[in-house]
């Protein structure tokens, strides 16, 4: 049973567009949601994270929108650049538990 789901396996956008990556989860106890960016041959790198008390978190060109009632969230990458081409993982955890549960990832390709 997949506790964290990412709806798209891959996504292609043009340079300058906004890429939108969707994620949903099942466990209502989850309260911490990081997004990780992974390039081929490297480990995942923490990109941005949100806690369930917030509905939006912004960091530069990256924004998380969070809907606790619907148990879903999305990552928006504004003004996408070719260097943003990578695989993005949505993950979740909860207070008292420290291990992350990851989705299956969305591979983003940004075409110049």
């Amino acid at each position, binding site marked *: 049973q997949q506790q*964290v789901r990412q709806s798209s396996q891959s996504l292609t956008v043009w340079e300058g567009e906004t890429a939108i990556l969707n994620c949903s989860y099942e466990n209502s106890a989850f*309260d*911490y949601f*990081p997004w*990780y960016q992974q390039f081929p*041959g*490297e*480990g*995942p*790198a*923490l990109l941005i*994270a949100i806690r369930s008390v917030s509905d939006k978190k912004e960091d530069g060109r990256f924004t998380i929108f969070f809907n606790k009632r619907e148990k879903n969230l999305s990552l928006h990458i504004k003004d996408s650049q070719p260097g943003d081409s990578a695989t993005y*993982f949505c*993950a979740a*955890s*909860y*207070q*008292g*538990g*420290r*291990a*992350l*549960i*990851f*989705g*299956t*990832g969305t591979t983003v390709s940004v075409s110049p």
Partner: protein
Amino acid sequence: EAGVTQSPRYAVLQEGQAVSFWCDPISGHDTLYWYQQPRDQGPQLLVYFRDEAVIDNSQLPSDRFSAVRPKGTNSTLKIQSAKQGDTATYLCASSFGLGAGEQYFGPGTRLTVL
């Protein structure tokens, strides 16, 4: 500040052989995690430690996998008799403090079992 380091970066084995992976977490991080990442999938937790104590090893295939962190710093993950299904990247991560917090990953060891 140095990040999480792992070695080796690559390993190729025949089925039945043993292999060990080594991880050095970020200095001062008390929690260390081992994840398995099959190709084209997200990382999946195997085991994690708080200092030298195992907190959760329920996902570790105990008949063939073992992990230790004897002094609460570096850690070793060992596969006794590798199977083709163990082919994956093995990632180490570390974090500090109580509760769900920021985890920082190393580059991983890519294992191929022939």
